[in-house]
């Protein structure tokens, strides 16, 4: 099959590129669009480092054939800060020492964004469930859970409106 032109709305901007059929969303983001925050950890959907939001739901970009999400909306970590200002999840990760090597961070933050968009007041169990598909081999899970709960508190205190509630979490 020949390559085709595919369009996506990435971090709010329409983007077009040429893709061979079956090219993964992760490859397109990293190699065609230069958005390298999402990482390739296992390339088999089990480590979560490539997690981005497709229509506000977490998806492992290494398993998504890009033509299957043509014209859909994709959010990556690059689109989270606005005008260089960190959002509540990002600043909470910094303040709570929820980063170590940094390789899982993009996936963890995107999962947290999706969680807080649909539930502004998650329980600790909800947070643990939300990040259960994301591996941190530095095993810094505890500060990550604390940071996400702290981010939720910061959002509520700042009166940030929850985002559009996502439907069922995408299969992960």
């Amino acid at each position, binding site marked *: 099959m020949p390559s085709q032109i595919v369009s996506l709305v990435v971090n709010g901007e329409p983007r077009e590129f040429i893709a061979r059929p079956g090219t993964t969303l992760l490859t397109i983001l990293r190699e065609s669009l230069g958005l390298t925050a999402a990482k390739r*950890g296992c390339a088999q959907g089990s480590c979560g480092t490539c997690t981005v939001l497709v229509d506000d739901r977490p998806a492992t970009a290494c398993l998504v054939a890009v033509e299957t999400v043509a014209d859909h909306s994709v959010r990556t970590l690059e689109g989270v800060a606005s005008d260089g200002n960190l959002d509540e999840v990002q600043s909470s990760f910094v*303040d709570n020492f929820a980063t170590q090597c940094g390789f899982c961070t993009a996936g963890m933050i995107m999962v947290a964004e999706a969680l807080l968009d649909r539930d502004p007041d998650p329980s600790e169990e909800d947070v643990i469930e939300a990040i259960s598909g994301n591996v941190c081999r530095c095993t810094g899970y505890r500060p990550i859970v604390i940071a996400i709960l702290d981010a939720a508190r910061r959002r509520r205190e700042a009166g940030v409106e929850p985002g559009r509630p996502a439907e069922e979490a995408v299969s992960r």
Partner: protein
Amino acid sequence: MTYRLAPIDKRPFAAEREDDFTVIGSVVQRSDARGHVTGRTEFFEDVAPPGLLHLKMHRSARHHARIRGVDLTAALAVPGVTRILTHADIPNNLYTPLKLIGVGPDDEPILAVDKVRYLGEPICAVVAESEAAALEGAARVRVDYEDLPAVFDVEEALAEGAPLVNEYHGQNFFKYEGHHCRRIRFGDVEKAFGQADHVFEWRYESAPIEQAPTETTGCVVVPQADGRLRIHSDTQACFFTLDNTALILEVPFNRLRIVGGTVGGGFGGKVDVTVEPVACVAAMVTDRPVKFVYDRDEEMQVSSPRAAERIYIKDAVMDDGRIIGRKVTLYVDSGAYARHTPYGTTKAAAHLPGPYSIPNVWADCHCVFTNRTPSSAMRGFGVTIGDFALESQMDRVARALSMDPLRLRLLNAYRDGDLKAHRKVAEGTALVEVIQKTAELVGHELPEAYRRMSSTTREGL
């Protein structure tokens, strides 16, 4: 912020200058955190130079075999395959990473020559226009093997008649200054066993442990107009990698430039020099950028794990809990090559007999070659498994004597000024105080005599 900042107990630091205490007890933001949370931290694989070639390895399908022949015909016919490297392309194909600090002999080929010594050993490197073509090419390499008997157990490897794993050593163990192992000889353990009220001997064993970083091992090598090679790498050891790579390429060190320092999880698994040399050769012969990054399954199979260890500990113990003799026989499984395991075994020896003042100590610490994946660095390698064994031993001795395990340790803990089995005087030990504080924190009752003990004096013993 949810941090409780307790005041520092400065008593143990009485000799330190007050104005040195500017950081402990304060919150310092990580310098790399902002890059991590914005996705702007540059990992090696985020570099995408134009014209990038991909390298994939064809690896040994045998644990131990002679190579009769390698057929590259089908691999070279794969569209997109541009070059296949064999041992003949590597300027200095035989190396050992610790030669930089004078450890020898060279015992490991970059690409196998006439023999493979472990499952997954690199044989030839397929360079192609795409990752898919490189994988396809690597899958189509045909190797004609003549199987050799293999050995996977440290004690079997040392037994008479065991197959010889590594000819460069000439025997299945690493020689330390002419000795068959690292040894400690202090006092007379056999005499202690004769005098002891009890003799306890147990065996401890660990499996290899893979570091499994989320970012797999890899590099991108970019040839520069001035003839230098720029190496983007996730190595944990930039200078070590640079120096070893230069020796393997037979080029001056200043022909290479490493861009590194950002490591997506290492835990020791990215200390060995495994991807850079062959990627550099590929970049040199093609004059194009080359990426060589492990797949997840390669990371799990061939990146060097923490060594498996087997440890026998025999203690001479008195009724009151004093340990008067300790004999340790320790085997570290180096796998097929030395890498960092001779050093790890030395560390293991240096860590014996644990933080205890024992007047008679005997230890033999063997670094053994087997047909398993070469082991290497991982988080306190050489020490952690020994600690597991030593502290399990202390618990079992305490149980056998019906004694509180903390009291057993307090009784035997070394004090400042004690002569250790390595004939070094113990300084700044503090183990007694740490145990006392731990007992207090967990509500473990200690009798007054044990609460009064101190690491600075042997009084009360």
